[in-house]
C-alpha cells in the first residue's frame, strides 16, 4: 500500500486550519515528527475493513433530552471575572479587521 507522507507546506496548511503558527525550525521539526507518526497510521491499511461499520462512541444512550428551560444562568459576573479583558460588562477583544481600532 502507498505510504502517506506530509510536506512542510502541507504542515503549514494544517497549522493554519488549527489556528497555530510555527517558525521555520518548528515547521521542520513538526514535519519530521508528523511524518513518523503517519507511518504508524499507515499500518491500518493492512486491515480489510470492507463492510465493517465505524464506531464513533460506545455509549449505550441514544440521546438525552430535557425541557428547554433556562437553568443556572445568573453567572455573568462570575464568568466575566475570568475574561482577560472586560469593558462595560462585556468581554473586550481586538477588531476583527486591521485598522478598525477596538
Amino acid at each position, binding site marked *: 500500500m502507498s505510504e*502517506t507522507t*506530509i510536506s512542510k507546506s502541507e*504542515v503549514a496548511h*494544517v*497549522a493554519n*486550519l*488549527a*489556528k*497555530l*503558527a*510555527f517558525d521555520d525550525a518548528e515547521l521542520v521539526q*513538526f514535519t519530521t*515528527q*508528523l511524518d*513518523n*507518526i503517519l507511518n*504508524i*497510521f*499507515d*499500518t*491500518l*491499511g*493492512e*486491515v480489510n*475493513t470492507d463492510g*465493517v*461499520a*465505524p*464506531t*464513533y*462512541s*460506545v*455509549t*449505550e*444512550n441514544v*440521546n*438525552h433530552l*430535557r425541557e428547554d428551560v433556562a437553568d443556572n444562568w445568573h*453567572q455573568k459576573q*462570575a*464568568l466575566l*471575572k*475570568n*475574561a*482577560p*479583558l472586560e469593558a462595560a460588562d462585556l*468581554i473586550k*477583544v*481586538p*477588531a*476583527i*479587521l*486591521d485598522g*478598525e481600532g477596538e
Partner: protein
Amino acid sequence: MTINFFDNDLTSLHEKLVNKDISTVDLTQATLENIAKTDSELQAFIRTNSDEALLQAKKIDEQHDFSNMLSGLPLALKDNLATNGIETTGASHILEGFKPVYDATVVSKLSTAGAISVGKTNMDEFAMGGSTETSYYKKTANAWDHTKVPGGSSGGSAAAVAGGQIPFALGSDTGGSIRQPAAFNGIVGLKPTYGRVSRWGLFAMASSLDQIGPFTRTVKDNALVLNTIAGFDEKDSTSSKRDVPDFTSKLTGDVKGLKIAVPKEYFGEGIDPKVATTVKAAIAQLELMGATVDEVSLPHTKYGVAAYYIIMSSEASSNLQRYDGVRYGFRADDVKNLEDLYIKTRSEGFGDEVKRRIMLGTFSLSAGAYDAFFKKAAKIRTLLIEDFNKVFADYDVIVGPTAPTVAYGLGEEIDDPTAMYLADVLTIPVNLAGLPGMSVNAGFVDGLPVGLQIIGKPFDEVTVYQTGYAFEQASRLFEQRPNIAKKY
C-alpha cells in the same frame, strides 16, 4: 499531630474520625503537613487549597456526620477537574489563572459526601502524555525512585498517593492515564467503564474515550471511592442509567472458578522480559488460588495505537478549539486583530505535545484524509471491540501487563513522541472498547513496580475488583513501602 497513610487505609481513617480519635481539622492539617514535608522532592501538586480545605473540615467536625465512608477524608484532584472558584489549569499555560464557576460532578459528589479536596495534582498538559513531563508547571518524580517518571498523564495523583501524601486521589484515563501511572508507582488505579462516572467538569480531551477514576493504595479503598463517584448524571448525556452496585460486594479473596483470559499479544514484541515474567508470576498466583487461566488472542491489538492516536487527536483537536484567549485564561499581547489573537494565544499558550495532537487531529479530519484516517480508525475500533466480545463470551476477566516497561528516567523518552505513543499499546484498546480496566501492583523489577492489568466486561467493575483484591491479599505487595514513607 501527624498521620501516616501507609499505616491507615480509608476504613481505618474513617473509624478514627467516627470514634473522635482524630478530628477532621487535625487530619486535614496533618495531610497538608505531609505534602509540605515531601512535595519538594515529589512535586506532585501544582497547588494546594489549604484555606478552603480547613474551612470545610471545620464544618464536617461541627456536623459530625460520618454516614458516608469518605466524610472527612482528604483527597487530591487531577488539575483537569473543575473546582468552583479554585484555579484549574489542566497543567496548561493557556488556562493559567482560570477559576471555574462550577464543580465537576465528581467533585460535588465527593464534597456532598464530606470528603475534603486539599489540592490539584500535576499532569501532562491537557492529559496529553505518558510521563507528566508535558506539564507547563513542573516535573513530578516517581514515588519509588525520584530520578524516574511517575507515568502519566495523571502522574501527580499517582505519586501523591504512592508517596503517602494523601490517602486517595482522582485522575482521568483516555488511553491509560490512570492505569499506567498506577503501575509505575505500585498502587491501584481504575478506569471505570465508559459512562460509569460522569465526565461533567472534566476538561475534555477525547470525549468518546475519557473517564474519571480513583487512585488508592488498596483495592478496597478504590472500590469505596468508586461507590461515591459513580452513577448517572443529567449533565453528561453519555453517563449510564444502569444501577450502581456496591463495588466492594465481591471482595472475598476468593477467585475459585473465575475464568481468566491472557492475550498472547500482550506479551509480544516490545514487552520487557522482566515485566513479562513478573506479570506471569502474578497470573500463576491467581491460578494457584483456583482461577482457570487460558491463553487467548486479541488479533487487532497491534492496530490499537494507530486507531487510538487518530481518534483521540481528532476529538482533541475539536475539543481544544475553545481555547482562543477570548473568554478565560491566557491571552497573547501585541495582536493586530481577532484572528491574530487566536493564533498568537494558541501558539504561545499550548505546549508542543498539545500542538502535535491538534495538528494530527486536524489533519485526520481534513478533506482528503477523513476516509483514509478518521473513518478507517473508527472501523478498526469496531474490530477491536469484536475481539474483546469474542473473548468475554467465554471468560470473566482479561489480564496482562499494564505497561511494557517499568518507569523510565526523567527526560529519557520525552523527545521521541513515536516511542511514547507506542508505549500505550496495552492500555489503549480498553478505552477504545469502553471497558473497565485496573492496574494493581504485580511485583518489582530493579526496585520499580510492575503493573498487573485486569480488564472486565462493560459495567463489571465488581469482578475486576474481586480479581485484584484476591491477588493483592495473597501477595501483600501493598505492604512494601518506598523510602519516602520514612518521612512521615
